[in-house]
């Protein structure tokens, strides 16, 4: 596993929650959004175990419904608990990235 994907592993749940907070998305859309912000090396399939785990922990809920282009898709949105979890992750992350940023700049 590359250093980059090891680092990402811990924060991927947070990234997925952050995308879903902005808009209701389905799986493929979510992976595209992660790629466009620069997380291109997250292998696309990685999001499905993450989505399942977040659903199991009641942080998001998925609903199958017809899409604009026709076929049924599962759309995800945050639950109340998901919003709270994301707020926690966000403040923790900002704290960490600030501190680590100072160190890494040398």
């Amino acid at each position, binding site marked *: 596993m590359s250093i980059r994907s090891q680092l990402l592993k811990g924060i991927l749940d947070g990234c997925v929650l952050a995308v879903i907070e902005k808009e209701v998305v*389905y*799986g*493929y859309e979510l*992976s595209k959004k992660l790629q466009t912000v620069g997380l291109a090396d997250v*292998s*696309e*399939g*990685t999001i*499905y*175990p*993450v*989505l*399942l*785990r977040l*659903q*199991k922990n009641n942080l998001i809920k*998925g609903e*199958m419904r017809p899409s604009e282009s026709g*076929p*049924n*898709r*599962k759309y995800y949105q945050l639950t109340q608990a998901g919003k709270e979890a994301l707020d926690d992750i966000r403040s923790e992350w900002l704290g960490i990235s600030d501190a680590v940023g100072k160190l890494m700049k040398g």
Partner: protein
Amino acid sequence: MVIVKKIIAENNKKRKLLTKENQAYFDKLLVYVRAHVLLSERQSEEVLMEMLDHLLIAEEEGKTAVDVFGPNPKAYADDIVDALPKEKKGSLMTFGVEILCDLMGWFIIIGAVGRYFTKSDQIYLYSAIINVVALVAIGGGLLYLILQQLKKGAFEEKMSTSAIIKAGLVGTGTFGLFMGILYFTDKLGPLVNITWFAQLGAGSALLLISYLMKRDRTKRY
């Protein structure tokens, strides 16, 4: 229409659209996930559908299943299985009873038809009970072994010779065991008067219960 059934039907149709290599890869994931029967069926089928849809779009972009799900299908499938929620205990129980009624129903009906030809109106009570218990135990054991083999063999390219021999031995062994039990316990306990027709009725009643339970189960999805 029932949602899970609809998803499975859609899955069967869409899977044919994949390239040969991608379908081979996806089929392994599918068999492995479905062999975990204690996991929520609805959630399992939904995530398989999402993955299939994703793979179909990725194909149009020139990507392969390896690009999307990684080079190690077993590791990926384990990630999925670990993240899936368990089926609710109640649903598992009623599903078990449903299968049990189905299995016993057919067994009792076949026995009834046999007795129609032998013209006997009596059965040995203990023998009958032992037969049904043996049927359920051996049937359950066999089902368990088959699921284990599906999980283990899902990612092997070809079934190894030793696995084929083992499967053959287990198959003939369990059949022989069942026949042996029927043979050696055929005259135990008091004789009870039950006409073949009453037995046919009892078997049919079990099948009816199983059918109604199945209808109810699939309606609730």
